[in-house]
């Protein structure tokens, strides 16, 4: 798996529904690649920020 393939699987949302084998290879790639590991950690923060922004927009209590 290349960085480009890994990042696409992550950002498209495919990894969430992926099977065990695909998630295993994604995990292997993450272990080997510092940049993809960093991107993944940032993406989790990005998701959290967007959820907070959504709550801010509709005035709902923060998660």
């Amino acid at each position, binding site marked *: 798996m*290349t*960085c*480009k*393939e890994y*990042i*696409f699987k992550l*950002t*498209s*949302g*495919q990894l969430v529904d992926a099977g065990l084998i695909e998630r295993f290879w994604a995990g292997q790639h993450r272990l080997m690649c*510092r*940049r*993809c590991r*960093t*991107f993944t*950690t*940032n*993406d989790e*923060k*990005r998701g*959290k*920020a*967007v*959820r*907070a*922004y*959504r709550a*801010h*927009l*509709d*005035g*709902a209590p*923060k998660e």
Partner: protein
Amino acid sequence: MLAQKMDFEQLARDFRPPMLRFAQLHLPRREDAEDAVHDVLTAMLATDWSKVSEGGIRTYLFGILRHKITDRLRHKYRGEIACGEVFEDDLDDMLFTTRGHWSTGVAPGLWSSPDGQLETEQFFAVVDLCVNRLPPKPARVFSMREFLECEAGEICNVLGLTQADYWQCMSRARKQLQLCLNQRWFGGRTS
């Protein structure tokens, strides 16, 4: 009973601005956003409020608004979107080498803001800016997923997308958002 003490004018004054702001995120034309909010306010008058708890008014109104926005998107954009073919300036060409590895100096560095800083008005203003800088088509798919909380299947159905188009749009939006936030909030460091 909630219905007996309901002040509709006050409710409209309280909820119209946040609903309009939310609607405008998804419906580019202000008239469409105003129409969606107007529909919600009209529906509010016909609501049986005895079934809605006082604390659930906001959730109830935004629930209707989400449906009104989705209906408008369904009519407006069905069959128009195919994300794979809209990016002449393909972001991936900038991010990755021809062998699929990160190009030098473009991968974002690790974000280190404390969580609390990511819930401030200033940060939300940056998120707003970055969301609004997304290309229109990925922006529409992304906002339906993240802000309207639609499932992937529903988004594909509403917008007439294939699963592959949906993945392309979501990937493009999330990659660009991370790059934008990295540049505008996290100091633009790369790894």
